[in-house]
């Protein structure tokens, strides 16, 4: 006798033998359906616990049943049980109880599910569905009977070990079943695959993302042609207004800071009002002036009352939208100015500029720069004395003062408003009714209510209803900070600026002055000059000074003598120590450490063991009041950059391109501000995490994946155009859906100061090219949009874009040159004026190049040359270079074109003059080695220029990494036969073909007319994802793709054979010493290729003797390629 139960038999009734009540409608409920499990019952005492505690019951009952049952082991028991469960299931299904089981409803025919873990709907409901719709339901997993595993969530261990868990079966979410039922057919399970799994697996579609997105992009520009032009209008209007306002602002002068702020506010509100008006009615300039007048009047009316926006009732829904949804991200701290206007990159063309104009963190960040400039001289003295101080090992008494302005951001703003002094005030960028902005600083009266920085205005007002919110006043901050540091530097030479309102002074040397007196003197002076109170802490170490300030606040000072250190620290909670944050505090709490005295009981070793070397050391010494730091100058920035993580939303590629351009402008300005040039550029992207909902903070970045890529260029730069090109390239390498982007940052590192790398302001050809190509692309973009109907152009553009993204530097530069080619049609605005052209250069150019240039100059060029030469020359009447030519343009003319544009560029620099040494610039342009120079280009050059180029080569070789060689580097085989000879002449005799990254041969083969060579080269480009793919992997791929078809002419064949053999020979030489495995692999593959393709058979036969000779030489044997 046997009784069966399942783990979901949820009711105690199930221990009774029950006949299923056919009339029950609630059959989907687990209680009644589980009853059906029990077929035969044996009344034993333990059955009462069934279903309540299945584990325990099953053990005891199975043991007891084993004793009396015929089963020899658990296995046979289980098989019997499964059989019975199947029978039950079948019986239930056949009774038609679960509803109509007409053949049309058997959508799950052949599907057998196993439910793993908790699901919604429950496994019992799922079982019901399976019964009803012709599927099967397995209680126990078996590879043979189960077809789908249904679950909503998997533990990590199962995810990691998915194959052993699922045995290759699909793991599907329960909604698959529900959706299938509602669709009345069996849907594909693929979209319902468990999210955890789909996340882990990179999707193929992700790789094609840029392509699929760029197509609709172009289409959409077609569609939105009309609106775009309107947007342009608006943008222009805006710019006008902004300019006018700026002018007005400066005109008024800086009499009063509050006025200043109001001006900004006004400007914004006006703009907000205008935009809907313009876009709605399309009124133009009269309206502008009207509005302007209106603003001008209001500006006078507005007083210091905050918020000024309350005076302007929302003119349209647009405004209210802005107001309501204003929010702030603490990390990016966008401020009032920004919040009152368009909030995202979507709507505001000047987003980046405005963003940084009004960011508090940005202010703090850039303040440091300002400080360094201002106090550079005084910190010099610090360095020298400082080193001496360190060397002594500080045997004498040290004394530090830590001085901090009290609630700087508030007190500066309210210092001129005595009526606010004693009221609770907080600084925040916005005081909107929703109160979702974050408070950045609060004064002491407000703090007494519990208002803290980082709190939402809403919550703060709950705590303190009379809280007054004031906006930032950056200019005042700057002024106060400057005064503050003036005073500090006056009293002490050793000043370390921590922030705009906080500094350390090293007063150990000032023997004659008591630090306490000095501190009070400074504080007094600070208060008198700036109107802000400062607190000071004095201690024997920087740590103690800082801790003392904590006690001193507000507006006081406190001295911790060295003998009182332990006493002071004893009861100090650990999280007060600098460097101890929330995480570390919690960790310490777990070790039962909450105060410094407890911390002191732990040995240094065990601290270091538990928290790491550095942190352990820090905790150990800090808990003893030790601090080995000494006052230093402000550290040099390691990198300069800008991040925007708030309000970032893009619709299409154009949006992001525009945004990147603005960001680059900002970064370039910052670089220039610091007088720095950078070599490494890192683009950081915040990408919306899959499934991340729209963030709680309006326009915040939410839950994001952080991606970053960087590139290093050989010559440091701050040139905005180079930045733009690089950032564009970096962005392209991400292959992202622009809609997913929530934040973009650009950092420049490997900084050099401008002086050290002073090269005048010569623009390199690289930058020029990139500039031109960027422009071209824009034009091409806009043109594609304009053309609209002609899809051919659009497509061309898309492919060009794609190749750009997908291919390596070198490929890109060739495309760039080809873009220049196409560019010549509408370049007129950016080419140098005719009078700046060097006629000698022009004359020595090939005629077709001149013709092209001529188009650029609208036909004037030829006339000029004719005049000069006195020779007749037919004016080229070829039509505009169409976009379709772009692809084929990768040849001599375009290259010459780029070169010649460069020469013109050179002429454009008045300082340099035409006769200046070409080498200065050449150094930036020259390829790594002479082998990469296109000889034919060189030969076309005038004598003196060629000499200059050759002279520039050796000096240059040192600086360049191969990947960065711009332009001019590649071979081109326009006339294949000649090239074959040329090779011998110029001599690629040695390992040249494998030099560079990508190696030279890739480019060489790409332009070859032989399809196999092309094929191989393309293969390399595909594989380039791996760093420097090996030849064997290329050949391996070639096996699948190279067809046996053979259609080349004899000429082609010879040349191609020669090239491939040379390639192999050089590869053998390269690898023979270190990697015969690779050679072996290559020749095995070559042999397989030879079976399919005559071409490779010949190659194999030609190269084999060479190979064997090499092997014999190095290894004393023959390679066994059987």
């Amino acid at each position: 006798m046997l009784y069966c139960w399942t783990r979901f038999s949820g009711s105690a009734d199930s221990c009774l033998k029950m006949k299923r009540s056919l009339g029950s409608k609630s059959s989907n409920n687990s209680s009644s359906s589980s009853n059906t499990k029990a077929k035969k019952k044996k009344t034993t005492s333990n059955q009462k616990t069934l279903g309540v505690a299945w584990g325990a019951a099953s053990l005891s009952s199975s043991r007891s049943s084993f004793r009396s049952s015929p089963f020899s082991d658990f296995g046979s028991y289980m098989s019997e049980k499964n059989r019975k469960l199947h029978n039950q299931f079948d019986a239930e299904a056949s009774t038609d109880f679960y509803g109509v089981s007409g053949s049309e409803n058997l959508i799950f025919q052949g599907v057998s599910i196993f439910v793993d873990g908790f699901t919604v709907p429950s496994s019992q409901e799922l079982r019901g569905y399976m019964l009803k719709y012709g599927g099967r339901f397995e209680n126990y997993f078996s590879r043979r009977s189960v077809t789908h595993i249904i679950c909503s969530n998997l533990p990590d261990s199962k995810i990691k070990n998915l194959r052993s868990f699922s045995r290759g079966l699909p793991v599907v979410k329960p909604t698959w079943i529900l959706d299938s039922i509602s669709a009345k057919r069996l849907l594909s399970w693929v979209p319902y695959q468990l999210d955890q799994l789909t996340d882990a697996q990179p999707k193929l579609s992700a790789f094609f993302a840029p392509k699929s997105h760029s197509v609709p992009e172009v289409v959409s520009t077609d569609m939105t042609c009309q609106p775009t032009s309107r947007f342009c209008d608006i943008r222009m209007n805006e710019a006008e207004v902004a300019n006018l306002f700026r002018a007005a602002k400066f005109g008024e002068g800086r009499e009063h800071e509050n006025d200043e702020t109001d001006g900004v506010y006004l400007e914004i509100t006006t703009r907000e009002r205008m935009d809907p008006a313009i876009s709605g009615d399309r009124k133009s300039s009269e309206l502008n002036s009207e509005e302007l007048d209106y603003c001008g009047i209001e500006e006078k009316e507005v007083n210091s009352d905050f918020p000024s926006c309350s005076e302007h009732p929302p003119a349209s829904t647009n405004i209210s939208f802005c107001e309501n949804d204003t929010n702030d991200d603490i990390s990016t701290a966008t401020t009032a100015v920004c919040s009152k206007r368009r909030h995202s990159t979507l709507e505001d063309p000047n987003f980046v500029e405005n963003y940084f104009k009004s960011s508090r963190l940005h202010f703090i960040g850039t303040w440091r720069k300002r400080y360094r400039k201002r106090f550079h001289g005084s910190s010099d003295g610090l360095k020298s004395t400082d080193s001496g101080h360190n060397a002594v090992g500080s045997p004498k008494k040290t004394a530090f003062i830590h001085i901090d302005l009290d609630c700087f951001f508030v007190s500066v703003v309210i210092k001129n408003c005595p009526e606010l002094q004693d009221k609770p005030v907080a600084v925040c960028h916005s005081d909107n009714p929703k109160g979702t902005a974050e408070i950045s600083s609060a004064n002491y009266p407000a703090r007494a209510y519990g208002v803290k920085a980082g709190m939402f205005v809403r919550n703060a007002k709950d705590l303190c209803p009379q809280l007054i919110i004031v906006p930032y006043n950056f200019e005042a901050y700057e002024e106060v900070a400057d005064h503050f540091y003036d005073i500090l530097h006056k009293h002490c030479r050793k000043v370390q600026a921590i922030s705009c309102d906080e500094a350390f002074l090293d007063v150990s040397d000032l023997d004659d002055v008591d630090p306490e007196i000095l501190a009070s003197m400074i504080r007094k002076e600070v208060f008198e000059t700036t109107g802000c109170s400062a607190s000071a802490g004095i201690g024997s170490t920087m740590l103690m000074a800082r801790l003392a300030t904590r006690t001193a606040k507000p507006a006081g000072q406190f001295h911790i003598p060295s003998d009182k250190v332990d006493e002071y620290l004893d009861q100090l909670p650990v999280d007060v120590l600098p460097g101890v944050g929330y995480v570390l505090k919690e960790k310490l709490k777990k070790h039962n450490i909450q105060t410094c005295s407890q911390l002191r009981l732990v040995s240094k070793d065990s601290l270091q063991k538990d928290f790491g070397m550095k942190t352990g050391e820090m905790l150990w010494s800090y808990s003893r009041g030790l601090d080995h730091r000494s006052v230093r100058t402000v550290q040099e920035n390691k990198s300069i950059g800008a991040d925007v993580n708030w309000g970032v939303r893009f619709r299409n590629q154009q949006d992001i391109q525009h945004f990147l351009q603005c960001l680059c402008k900002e970064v370039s300005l910052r670089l220039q501000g610091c007088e720095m040039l950078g070599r490494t550029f890192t683009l950081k992207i915040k990408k919306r995490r899959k499934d991340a909902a729209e963030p709680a903070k309006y326009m915040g970045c939410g839950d994001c994946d952080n991606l970053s890529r960087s590139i290093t260029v050989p010559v440091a730069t701050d040139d905005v155009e180079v930045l733009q090109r690089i950032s564009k390239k970096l962005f392209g390498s991400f292959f992202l859906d622009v809609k997913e982007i929530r934040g973009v940052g650009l950092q420049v590192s490997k900084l050099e100061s401008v002086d050290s790398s002073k090269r005048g302001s010569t623009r390199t050809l690289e930058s020029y090219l990139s500039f031109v190509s960027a422009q071209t692309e824009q034009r091409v973009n806009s043109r594609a949009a304009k053309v609209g109907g002609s899809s051919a152009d659009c497509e061309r553009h898309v492919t060009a874009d794609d190749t750009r993204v997908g291919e390596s530097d070198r490929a890109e530069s060739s495309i760039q040159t080809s873009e220049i080619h196409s560019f010549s049609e509408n370049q007129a605005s950016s080419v140098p004026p005719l009078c700046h052209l060097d006629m000698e250069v022009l004359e020595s150019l090939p005629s077709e190049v001149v013709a092209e240039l001529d188009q650029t100059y609208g036909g004037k060029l030829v006339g000029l040359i004719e005049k000069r030469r006195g020779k007749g020359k037919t004016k080229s009447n070829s039509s505009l270079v169409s976009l379709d030519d772009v692809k084929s343009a990768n040849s001599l003319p375009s290259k010459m074109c780029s070169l010649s544009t460069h020469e013109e560029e050179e002429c454009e620099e008045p300082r340099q003059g035409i006769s200046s040494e070409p080498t200065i610039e050449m150094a930036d342009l020259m390829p790594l080695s002479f082998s990469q120079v296109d000889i034919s280009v060189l030969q076309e050059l005038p004598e003196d220029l060629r000499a200059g180029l050759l002279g520039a080569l050796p000096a240059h070789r040192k600086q360049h990494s191969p990947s960065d060689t711009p332009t001019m580097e590649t071979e081109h085989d326009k006339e294949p036969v000649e090239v074959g000879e040329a090779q011998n002449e110029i001599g690629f005799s040695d390992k040249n073909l494998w030099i560079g990254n990508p190696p030279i041969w890739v480019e060489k083969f790409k332009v070859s007319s032989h399809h196999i060579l092309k094929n191989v080269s393309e293969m390399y480009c595909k594989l380039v994802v791996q760093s420097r793919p090996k030849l064997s992997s290329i050949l391996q791929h070639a096996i699948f793709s190279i067809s046996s078809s053979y259609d080349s002419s004899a000429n082609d064949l010879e040349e191609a054979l020669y090239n491939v053999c040379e390639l192999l020979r050089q590869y053998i030489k390269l690898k023979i010493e270190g990697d015969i495995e690779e050679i072996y692999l290559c020749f095995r593959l070559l042999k397989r290729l030879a079976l399919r393709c005559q071409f490779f058979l010949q190659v194999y036969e030609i190269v084999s003797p060479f190979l064997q000779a090499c092997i014999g030489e190095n290894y004393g044997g023959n390679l066994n390629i059987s």
Partner: protein
Amino acid sequence: MPMSRNDDHQSSSGELAQTLVEFLEVAVSSIVFLKGVYPSEAFERQRYMNVVVQRARHPELRDYIHSATSGLLPFIQKDLVERVAVIFFNKDNIPIERFIFKLTINPSHETDAAQLEFSLRSFLIKLPFSKPLLKTLPLDCRWEVTAYLRSLPEVGSSKDAETWIPTDTKQWQKPPLITPIKSLDSDPLCLQLYLEHPSSS
């Protein structure tokens, strides 16, 4: 076979030699196992560099392999060893198959222990896959470990050196056929493992 691993990231060239000798010991054991000179019961599974390898159970065999490879240490340290061969030969002392480790050490480079371990591990993984390339051995075959030195060491330069004797194994008359198994081309160590078979012609 004490497989004590040094977890330092940077190890000197001396440690490189030590690692290499250790690796050779394991590799030779694996080769002997692979060739099936002894019944497979004579070996036991062990982990080395996180790979399952076979180690001789018999103390004498184990000692022979250990002494043979560790005896190489002074020569490797002096960069005298050009090749290490595991030679299988028949009763007439004619080699049937030779496993060659060809090494080039560039002591000037710092060794990244983790990187080295990663590279050497791939040898141990690849080695069992060379089985189809191998020839079956005659019944009464023997094997030896032979080191080819770049120059003869001074006699008595070290105690370890004394355990090495000139080999009397015959050489092949014709250049052998070479079948590469695995190559490592990195900076401190360049190591090639390949098979040599007598040329068929």
